[in-house]
């Protein structure tokens, strides 16, 4: 975990000859860093101001006035006020959080159990390991398609469960969400598995051995030896998945298009529909900035918390 929070170390030894080397290196380093800086400025600074500007207007690309003349339709903070009373925004937010609090823990427990199974060697481990990793390497849009095919009324799932072909999953108010969550868990449990297994294998084996010799049961060893040493890994895995889960779009959009109605509309799907269905670009800009703001605060708080625990 420390890698993220620690600042990059200046690994050059600063004495005598090497001090001058370090100084020259800095000049050289500037050219090394330039492409990244240009890309970052290009995608961060200018767009940010443009987004701020558009968010306080009524501008949409349909009205025929270019974006830089958007001040003609100035709206003050109406977009910002409106977003807090917009039920679709709140609905989308709760649904996104619902997916997060169901899918991420599910992935965690499944991933942890799988990792425990793969902890020591057994014949065929390598092949099974590769099979386990496959889902997360498949294009998310294709995963969406796969589950779209499975959850059709005439698909195989209904046959296995002995349900009639009229029993719908993706067009049903409650089951649409369940289908999406199942697809997400299927695709991303392998990621949890991969990260947690790496952490589990990092637990010193002599400690485990010692605990075993002293007569600890498997469950005790897991709770007392393995789990405490995996804390950082667990935090990384959970944070990573939570962040990605908040952005969920491909799966949902391909499986249900946010439907039926708005039943599976997540934040990203809502923003997409506003962008291309209704062309409310200034509203999306305002909402986007709000999301940016909130997430930045959360990230800063989180990093500060981790840094405090580490230090």
């Amino acid at each position: 975990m420390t890698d993220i929070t620690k600042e990059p170390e200046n690994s050059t030894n600063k004495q005598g000859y090497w001090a001058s080397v370090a100084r020259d290196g800095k000049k050289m380093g500037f050219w090394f860093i330039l492409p990244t800086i240009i890309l970052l400025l290009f995608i961060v600074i200018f767009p940010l101001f443009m987004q701020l500007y558009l968010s306080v207007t009524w501008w949409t690309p349909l009205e025929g006035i270019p974006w830089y003349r958007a001040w003609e339709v100035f709206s003050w903070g109406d977009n910002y006020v409106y977003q807090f009373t917009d039920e679709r925004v709140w609905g989308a937010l709760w649904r996104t959080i619902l997916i997060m609090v169901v899918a991420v823990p599910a992935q965690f427990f499944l991933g942890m159990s799988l990792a425990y199974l793969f902890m020591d060697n057994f014949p065929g481990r390598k092949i099974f390991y590769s099979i386990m990793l496959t889902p997360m390497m498949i294009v998310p849009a294709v995963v969406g398609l796969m589950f779209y095919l499975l959850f059709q009324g005439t698909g195989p799932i209904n046959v296995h469960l002995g349900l009639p072909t009229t029993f719908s999953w993706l067009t049903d108010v409650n089951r649409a969400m369940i289908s999406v969550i199942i697809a997400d868990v299927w695709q991303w449990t392998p990621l949890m598995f991969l990260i947690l297994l790496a952490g589990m294998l990092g637990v010193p084996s002599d400690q485990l051995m010692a605990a075993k010799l002293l007569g600890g049961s498997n469950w005790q060893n897991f709770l007392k030896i393995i789990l405490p040493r995996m804390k950082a890994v667990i935090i990384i895995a959970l944070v990573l998945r939570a962040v990605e889960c908040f952005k969920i779009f491909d799966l949902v959009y391909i499986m249900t298009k946010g439907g039926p109605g708005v039943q599976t509309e997540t934040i990203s799907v809502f923003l997409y529909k506003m962008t291309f269905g209704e062309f409310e670009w200034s509203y999306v800009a305002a909402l986007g900035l709000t999301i940016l703001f909130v997430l930045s605060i959360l990230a800063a708080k989180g990093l500060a918390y981790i840094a405090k625990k580490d230090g």
Partner: protein
Amino acid sequence: MKVSPSSLVLKYFFVLFASAIVLYPLIWMVTMAFKPYPEWTTVAGLTWLPKNPTWQNFEFIFFGEAKGLVVSLDRTITGPFIASLVTSICGTIIAVVAGTLSSYACVRFGLAKTLPLSVLQLRLFPPLAVMIPVMVMWAFLGAVDTWWGLSLIYGIVTLPFAFWLMKTFFDEVPIEIEDAARVAGCSYWRVFYRITLPIVKPGLATCALFVFILNWSDYLLALLLTQKDWVTLPVYMATLTSAMGGQMYGMKAALGVIAAIPPVVFGLMIQKHLVRGLTFGALKQ
């Protein structure tokens, strides 16, 4: 460590069960790609292996029409496939070049101490929350629906991965080797180009494959920034039904199989480094 036979049996039971769940949707899609129309649904009974295997679906997406099908297609897979390939490769080049150079500067020269975190922040936000100005900019630059417009955005959004992944590889290069070359009179560029880069070559390859997978897997950005000429595979796959009106499960499945193959192959190739890449170098295997 001795493992009792009963626990081994139990282990295999769980592992096989998990494998079955993992393979279940995959097999359904792959076999679907080889099934003719009547077997697409389970109305006539559930069949796992196609009763009358056919290349019809692949024929249809490659040539726009197939024997025994009345419908035809005005856009075949060729365009989207090339678009996916070109934009993914160009995006990968941008990300890997910029990421490698800047991470090296961060590691060796201790420059730009806030850069690692600000780069990381790019991955935090939902892309849609920040895409409005990008779309306006792209329209203004004439970059919408061009190969370079999409490549550029791919390069930017995958830069954080390239940066952090390369950073971990550079961290492992002992400073002594570079110092020795410096003493021998090598310039900075030569040290980097002749000494360090060859050492991290395997890492560089891993990084490129990893970033390529990410670019190839994108759906959202292509959906936002392309319309017709440079539509990528996932977008093309998703629009296949809406264009034809009817359900084209078999063709979509065939497309899905084709789109899924490169990332899975590359992913299994770099299996060892996946953890490192996916956790931005916070964890190594």
